[in-house]
């Protein structure tokens, strides 16, 4: 059980790291448009001439 003394603080640190990652994602505008990407995937733009 002693391993928990390492794992639990580690999980707390992990949460803070994930939080920071989300903060970055939010700042870079990834959550500004929640509707567009769902439609965007339907458009295949590899057929156009270059």
């Amino acid at each position, binding site marked *: *059980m002693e391993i*928990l*003394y390492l794992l*639990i*603080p580690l*999980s*707390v640190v992990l*949460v803070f790291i*994930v*939080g920071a990652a*989300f*903060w970055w994602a*939010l700042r870079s505008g990834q*959550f*500004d*448009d*929640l*509707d*567009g990407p769902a*439609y*965007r995937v*339907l*458009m*295949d*733009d590899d*057929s*156009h*001439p270059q």
Partner: protein
Amino acid sequence: MVATAYQDFGRSSGQATSPSACFHCGLPLGAQAWPVVVNGMARDTCCAGCQAVAGLIAGQGLDAYYRNRSAFAPTAAGQRAVSKFLEFDLPSVQAGYVRQVDADQSEVALLLEGVTCAACLWLIEQRLLRMNGVTAAIVNFGANRLRVRWQTQQVKLSSILAAIAALGYRAQLYDRGRSEILLARERRTLLWRLFVAAFGMMQVMMYAYPAYVADGDLPADIERLMKWAGLALTLPVMFWSATPFYRGAWQGLTARTLNRDLPVSIGLITAFAASLPATTGGPGAVYYDSISMFVFLLLGARLLELNARTHAARDQDWLARLIPVLATRLPRYPDRLQREDIPAALLQPGDVVEIRPGAPLPGDGVVVEGNSSVNESLLTGESKPLMKRPGDNVIAGSVNGSGVLAVRIARVGEDTALAGIVRLMDRALASKPRLASLADRAAAHFVFALLLVTAASAAVWWFIDATRVLPVIIALLVVTCPCALSLATPVALAAATGNLSRKGIVITRGHALEALAKATDVVFDKTGTITRGHMSLIGVLVMGRLSSDAAIATAASLESASGHPVARALVEAGCNLEKTPVGALRHTTGKGMEGIVDGQRLRIGSPEFVAELTGVAPPLELAFVSDEVTTVALGGEGEWLALFTLGDVMRPDAKYVVESLSSLGTAVHLLSGDRTPCVARVATRLGIAFFSGNATPAGKLDYVRKLQAQGAVVAAVGDGVNDTPLLAQAQVSIAMASGTDVARLNADVALLTDHIEPVLTAINVSRRTLRIIHQNLLWAVAYNVVAVPLAVLGLVTPLVAAIGMSASSLLVLGNSLRLRDSLTSAASRE
């Protein structure tokens, strides 16, 4: 790729596209079609604009757009010429909008108009990314916004705007100061708080779980460790995510009201304070899992609420966008050669500006030079352009026609008539509807009662079992839900208001929705509501060599310079036909016009006036024309060519609206100043049982008073100054789009489209709104009646309480948000 079949879709109501609709925008084709080849197939479009856009899309290899779109494109008829965008390259215009990213890159946010479906944003992005020098183009589908980044050395902002315009969309520089932006920032912060709470909740739950399942078998040191870990992750939830609730509660207290945030805050703080000693080794339980879950679910509800408000703000914001960004000032007027382009916001009263053809007006003012027709439809509802001459007043936001005008600005910014209308909309948002303030007051009483009950149960439990006091009061504070009262009602009203304003129905006073929903009688004023309120061409009788289309085209060309209502009706009838060149045009006041067409002298006007030219006896048919319509003749030397009959025709949707209103159980009344037989005929044709002719404004007022004395809730629909008393007397008033300013400013509901159907839509939506509010209240009562006794008896743990309360809030919110996009079927039938 194989040529796929293109989808057929109706313009929103699911009707199949007829072959006679424009391939690009779906509008019906006129006499002349403009062909375009897309993916090897010949298609017809309705105008040169759509042809050009479709040709460009196909030519760029972007025709996948047509396969993937789910709605027609905006029509490209009458789009702006590309050269018009050059002004956007000026540093003074770009200031405040364009952001310098680095030494040679700039970025701008644009507001897009005309985006109808997801394929549009693909089209715009693809087109821009293929331009040399554009490094990024990202469309935000939800907000209709476009962010472009470009190399300033290689491409100019004007070319980017022109490329968007060439696709048939309109892009405007996006002002950062708008309420929508503030809401967007608020949304970001809220999302961040929500995420912190969500992650805290998940992880804290993990730490709490062993204690639940182990049921006391957990080693004491591990349990302490778990508690400490829970505390570590609850701290950000408690002191960052939950701060809006503390602030709300504090604001409520300083304003001496008890709001929904107060029990939430007390519950959170109590739970947190009770958990601290337990963490450091003292007795009792920790509630970190309850705290973080409660905060997470409440913030989720707040996010939904904020989304509803953002939508409502966006729906109401479009009017403010009518003012152009730029104005051309003539600093040394009357010297018209020296001109400077300045941001419209910097104009001062007294400045003289030049208004180019097709440009919107930057401020209210007086024409000092030039003649042009000006379209004021968005402000006055007058759908036909008005002829403006020196000395005439013009208003900000109206659009100049074909002439160049010099205008002395009298009022700018907040003083303009346009700003007045925007304020009108804001008034509706600010004035709290009776329903909402009622809900607020009820919520305050509710919170007060809740605090009393909490204190009482705490006292009782103190004597029964002191260790259970804290769990009981936490559960009680958390489980009770004033949300249905104080949250769901405003959200329902905002959602309905936003929904209506998207359909061109502006609610200008808070009580309007409630009164509309309860309306038992709808009173129409005939002129301008049931009928169009202005002359339209009813019939054409050709007598000579011309076909009826040719006769209308000739008449329209002859009348094009006249501002008379009859002339305007003829010009309107002929607007889709090719113009006939007219020479030596002469106007005889009160009689008609004379001009030379194809080398022949022609006259149009009263039969007597035309008879002077023809020298032949008037056609016998004249005797059979009813007195109720106006007759106009067209003739040349020695011949009569055509007779036109004009009158105020009934709106095509009038019958449908009257029938639907009757089937909803609403009594329909028709009042008019017209002669009684005339009114009776209209009433019979529409199936209106109650009508009254020869009505003076005072008579109309009496009529409504009598109805009200019998207990009726009256909704009045009118358009003119003479309807103002009527509109004021009725419990709720609706002003038509074609109405006068006075009528519109005083009405509770202003229609922006020139149809009568929105009256029906407004009543339908308002009834639905009221129904949903009632459902929510019913739910709130039922929920609390069950939950409060259970919590008082100590049967609810804080965790269950958090889930129950949040589920209840989300339920009422979700129910309210149904109003946001409903009832499109009735509105788009026409």
